[in-house]
């Protein structure tokens, strides 16, 4: 506005210098909270006693000055300005009856808390960085001696494993170890065994249903069992990292492929 420009022109040289110094610094601030903290120091009081009202006025004056000097402030500075203007009105005006939300005092207290907390964090950060530091003030061993690591593998097996293994061998020709006869059921183990052998040939995405064995593709009961077993087996293989699995949409065909390392 013309009036504003005129006003800016009549500012004394020293005033302009001061204003510009402040503006030039804008880049140096890490956001509105940082700026507020800097402004609060001009009050020269303990942060716990800082006057938030006064601070809001300082901030708004700063933003106003920036506007005079046609400095474009980042959006978050303007958001903070709007909020502080709101806070100011809350602090100055008596609350309207039926007013919802936190009071001006509560908002002001939280802002003061935020400033105090930021200030405290800055102080401890400085204390931390001023501590004696490894590699600067104190040092670790210059010639560490490597610990030689050897890996020893021990195998575990129980007597039960041993007996079962023996029973398996001795009975495989004559009769089978105890299993229930369920013609129409394919077990996860069977499917896994089969798929482990087949997966090596699946270089590219292949429909899971194409893995169903001969004789399990037509009869609904057998087909259902084989599909479920194959699906569970493929998940098992995915878990071990042998294959990848995908389904483009709900009820879309499930596809798997051998996983290529790297």
């Amino acid at each position, binding site marked *: 506005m013309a009036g504003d420009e005129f006003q800016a022109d009549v500012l004394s040289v020293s005033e302009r210098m001061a204003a510009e110094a402040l503006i030039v610094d804008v880049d140096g601030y890490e956001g509105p909270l940082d700026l507020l903290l800097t402004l609060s120091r001009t009050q020269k009081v303990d942060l716990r006693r800082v006057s938030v009202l006064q601070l809001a006025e300082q901030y708004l004056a700063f933003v106003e000055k920036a506007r005079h000097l046609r400095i474009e402030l980042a959006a978050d500075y303007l958001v903070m300005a709007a909020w502080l203007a709101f806070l100011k009105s809350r602090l100055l005006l008596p609350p309207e009856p039926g007013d919802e939300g936190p009071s001006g005092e509560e908002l002001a207290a939280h802002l003061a808390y935020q400033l105090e907390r930021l200030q405290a964090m*800055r102080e401890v950060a400085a204390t931390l960085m001023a501590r004696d530091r490894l590699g600067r003030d104190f040092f670790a061993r210059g010639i560490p001696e490597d610990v030689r690591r050897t890996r020893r593998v021990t195998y575990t097996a129980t007597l039960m494993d041993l007996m079962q293994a023996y029973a398996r061998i001795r009975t495989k020709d004559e009769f089978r170890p105890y299993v229930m006869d369920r013609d129409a059921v394919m077990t996860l183990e069977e499917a896994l065994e089969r798929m482990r052998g087949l997966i090596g040939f699946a270089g590219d995405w292949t429909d899971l249903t194409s893995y169903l064995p001969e004789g399990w593709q037509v009869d609904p009961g057998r087909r259902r069992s084989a599909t479920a077993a194959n699906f569970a087996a493929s998940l098992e293989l995915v878990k071990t990292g042998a294959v990848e699995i995908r389904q483009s949409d709900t009820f879309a065909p499930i596809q798997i492929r051998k996983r290529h390392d790297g």
Partner: protein
Amino acid sequence: MAEDDDPQAPAESLFEAPPMGEQERMVEAILFASADPVPVSDLAARMPHGSDPAEALAHLRKRYEGRGVQVVRVGDAWAIRTAPDLGFLMHKEVVEERKLSRAAIETLAIIAYHQPVTRAEIEEIRGVSVSRGTVDLLIEQGWIRFGRRKMTPGRPVTFVVTPEFLDQFGLESARDLPGLKELRAAGLLDNRPPPGGPGDEDDDGEDGDQSELFEE
């Protein structure tokens, strides 16, 4: 020792542990050989059966009091480090460190004092957004790592400081951070949410709803 004659002594004492003086030598050798702090469990695993590394450590620590190198605790681990007052002799060993930005330093301090802390909480404290690069840099330095997720809407990841951080700043544990007690007493480490800040209520409500929906 009387314990050895005790018929109630545990079965482990079948294998006699080496005398404490020997155990102290062992701990000394292991700590000297390692540039990184060695956990007590590692000491126990490497020393003969029945050894008491904690006691040996206490003796060793005492022995090195006032010497040119010291036995220091770093979290659950122990290390030997040169005495800080002799740093001036080590100019040759100083590794030129990357200068940390102010943002990185403050972020590190906030993580140390508020851990486990989410990115949103760090941003709330600093009043500005935390850049990816800052967090990446601190992780790369080995000073922070991901902690467990917070049980709040969205289950955000948290950050915590590492044992390397403690080692770097010569801290025995995160409890020994300078000024920690005072900050806590002053309530400055509380997670104090803004009093119904503009739009915050809405956001929270939505987040809550969302996670509820997703958790079904």
